[in-house]
Every structure is written in structure tokens, then in C-alpha cells.
């Protein structure tokens, strides 16, 4: 069956209207104040949020010791070769070889050292190795699209991969995700845990994508877009991108005020 059968009725134009209306409402509500960095969990243009966001306000909790530290990852957890997603099979994957590098920092600019970074992505054709990915684009026998890195003492990571393709999804008719790489991070405190997506500069799909637009602050959205960095590019080998990540939140040195629980 050709995939254009069995498509939702909702059009891109419908979604565009919803995105624009929500953006205007958020800007009005902020009244010149700051918009949040994180996406809205109840972002209707992304239909899967409808039944998957809490309706009650979150309850503010004082972090206890377990929330102020993170799991201790060691050299046995991750092999250095896992930072290169192009060498996991007998042959070279198809596509545009790239290097993505940057630093993981906390809200004070301090490096997040020796912490686990997990990475996954579609191949150059926009296809994931996953049984539920039905996009009729070719799988690449030389690309699984999974990597892991433990950050260095300066909080840095360096990934070699191929540039993923955009891919269709069924949020609405003719919906396409901008090309992206999924990243999972651990901070120095577990409350800094972050899973997100890194995008590529100038993607024409940004304005059309409800997942990207769920971050209602335009400046915050741009923090997910890597920059092309010619100093990262390697001659005759790969183009380079730089993407730094900031994990704010209570750090391991955070001290609870006395009697905070009874305030």
C-alpha cells in the first residue's frame, strides 16, 4: 500500500494556524516578560500531547540527596568507539559524514564532567532502524544510528556520524520532521536530566514542525540548532557542527536553607 493512502484529514495549513494562534496567545500572556525555555507539555498542534500531559499543576518539591546527585558512570560503561556511528558495521554508511562537538555546562558555566550522553538518529534517507518506522525509505545495512559518549573533564563530547534526513510522520497530512539527532544527557544532579533533539541550521521545516514550535520562545528554540563550524570540519573527511548544551538546576553543592520544609 502506498503510504499516501490512510492519511489524516488535518492539513499543514490547519497546523500552521494553530501554531500561529498559540504563539500569539503565549506572547500576549507573557506581556513582555520571559517565555519559558522548555516546551509546553500541552501543545495541541503536536497531537500526541493531548492525552499525555498532566492537567494538575506540578507540586514543588525540595530536592533531597538523591535528587542532587547523578548516577556514577565509569569507563566500563561506554567504549570510546561508540562515539563514532560510522564504524559499527563492515562498510561505510551512506550519506554526508559529519562531526558534532560541544560542551555540556551547568547554569554557572561549569563543565558537566564524566557524564553519559546517549545519541540516536535516522539514517541519511530519514529512516530509523525500528520495526514501527514504516517510512518507505531504505535502511542502511551499515548504519544503526546509535552512539554513546562519556563527557571529558572539560564537559566536552565529540560525535562522528552522518547527517540524518528529514522524515514523514502522521501528526497531520504531509507532516515532515526537520532533520535532527536525539540526545539524552545526565547532569551533575538528577534533576538536570534532559532528553532533547539537535537540529541543523537553516532547515526549511522549522516553521512547520509542531515539536520544534512547542518551545514557544524563539530564542530558546534556536538553542537546539547546531552551528556550522569550519574549525570543526576535517579536510577531505567530514563537515563540522558545534552544539553546546546547558543543564541548569540544583547542583551537587546546592544547600537547602534550614527549615525549608517547614516554610
Amino acid at each position, binding site marked *: 500500500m502506498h503510504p499516501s493512502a490512510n492519511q489524516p484529514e488535518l492539513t499543514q495549513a490547519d497546523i500552521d494556524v494553530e501554531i500561529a494562534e498559540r504563539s500569539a496567545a503565549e506572547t500576549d500572556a507573557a506581556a*513582555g516578560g520571559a517565555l*519559558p*525555555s*522548555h*516546551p509546553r507539555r500541552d501543545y495541541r498542534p*503536536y497531537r*500526541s*500531547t*493531548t*492525552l*499525555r*500531559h*498532566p*492537567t*494538575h499543576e*506540578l*507540586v514543588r*518539591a525540595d*530536592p*533531597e*540527596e*538523591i*535528587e542532587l*546527585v547523578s*548516577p*556514577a*558512570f*565509569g*569507563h*566500563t*560503561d*561506554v567504549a570510546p568507539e561508540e562515539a563514532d556511528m560510522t564504524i559499527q558495521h563492515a562498510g561505510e554508511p551512506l550519506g554526508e559524514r559529519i562531526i558534532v562537538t560541544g560542551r555540556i555546562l551547568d*547554569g554557572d*558555566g561549569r563543565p558537566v564532567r564524566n557524564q*553519559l550522553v*546517549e545519541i*540516536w538518529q535516522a539514517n541519511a534517507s530519514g529512516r530509523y*532502524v*525500528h520495526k*514501527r*518506522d514504516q517510512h518507505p525509505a531504505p535502511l542502511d545495512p551499515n548504519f544503526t*544510528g546509535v552512539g554513546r559518549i562519556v563527557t571529558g573533564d572539560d564537559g566536552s563530547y565529540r560525535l562522528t556520524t552522518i547527517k540524518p534526513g528529514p522524515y514523514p510522520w502522521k501528526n497531520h497530512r504531509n507532516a515532515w520532521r526537520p532533520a535532527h539527532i*536525539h540526545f539524552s544527557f545526565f547532569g551533575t544532579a*538528577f*534533576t*538536570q*536530566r*534532559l*532528553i*532533547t*533533539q539537535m537540529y541543523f541550521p537553516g532547515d526549511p521545516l522549522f516553521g512547520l514542525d509542531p515539536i*520544534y514550535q*512547542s518551545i514557544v520562545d524563539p530564542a530558546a*528554540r534556536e*538553542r*537546539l540548532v547546531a552551528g556550522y563550524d569550519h574549525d570543526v570540519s576535517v579536510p577531505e573527511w567530514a563537515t563540522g557542527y558545534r552544539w553546546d548544551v*546547558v543543564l*541548569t*538546576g*540544583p547542583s551537587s553543592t546546592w544547600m537547602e536553607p534550614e527549615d525549608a520544609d517547614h516554610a
Partner: protein
Amino acid sequence: MPEQTDQPEHAQPEYLQTPSQTVGPFFGYALPYAGGPDVRAPWQPDAVRLHGTVLDGAGDPMPDAFVEIWGADASGQPSTELGSFDRDQHGFAGFGRSAADRAGHYSFTTIKPGAMREGSAPYLLVAVFGRGILQHLFTRAYFGDEPEANAADPLLGRIDEGRRDTLIAVPDAERSYRFDIVLQGEGETVFLDYGTEI
């Protein structure tokens, strides 16, 4: 609003939070790992089970969700043992990850942690991720067989009585606790903000 006087320029660069995005549906080859749900090997005498179903606002299970737990040891100390990911079968590193199965069910074996503070009840920190969840959700699993400690716990004490039970893992068998996670609607789990809702 009166006109603001000029603010001094920041002498330091500002480090602004990187926004969250959904984990999406296709993390299956990347995030689940061998031994992920076995924070404590099931054959260890102190192993307990924590399990439950992740449910959406229609009451349907979420087979594409996954759950992480992070808990202290029996004395209430966070583990600093290296190898949280590639753990051996004898130690205890405190961190676990369990992908929901086709019925939306997750399951861990771990140890029951000790209380971390005088006057606080023991709990496991729980994080929930999934397609349609744009920013993961934190909650805590307290233990139903600790009624006195739970009654005195400062966080539980601040939560509406009608919703408090959503934070209690219920003993359902010997050395086993059930902790369903309801994202929305009737019985909606209490989710927590650690000052990270920015």
C-alpha cells in the same frame, strides 16, 4: 509600566537552559540496555520489585513510554559506585531504566532505600519519558508498608489527601510493590517540580 533604567551589561556570559524535546517513538535501539531494569539482581536476598503500568488520559496503556528510577541504598546514601550503566550483578548503583512492554507495563528489581533525612520517608525518584511527552515528568514512589514514615513526610504532607496515594507504591506480593503512573485524568499521578520548570 514605567520605563526601565538601563540595566548593566552582563559581565559574564549567560548560560541558558537547553530546551527539552520528546524522546519520540524510535529510541528502542538506543536507550534500553541489558540489565537496565535490574538495579539489584533479582536473586539477591534484598531485591524488591517495583512495577506498574503507564497510562494516558484515556486510560490506555503507553507501550512507547519508558521509566527511569534513581534511589539511595538501604542506609539512605546515594550510590557512588562506578558503572551505573554496565553494572555487575553483585553491586548496587541505584539507577535503572525499564522500557514499557506492549501492555504499557514496566518492571524493576532494586532495593528498598533507606530514608535520606530525619523525618523523611524513603522513596525512589521516578522519571517518565515517551512520545507525546515534550518534557519528561518526575515523581516519587514512596512505600505503602511505611505508613508512619509516610504520615510524617514533609512532601507527602503538602499534597492533597485525595491525590497523595498516587505517590505510594502498594505492596502487591512478597517483596513487590505496584506503582502505576497515570499521566492525565482520574487518578492522575502527582508530578514534581524541582525548580526545573523554566
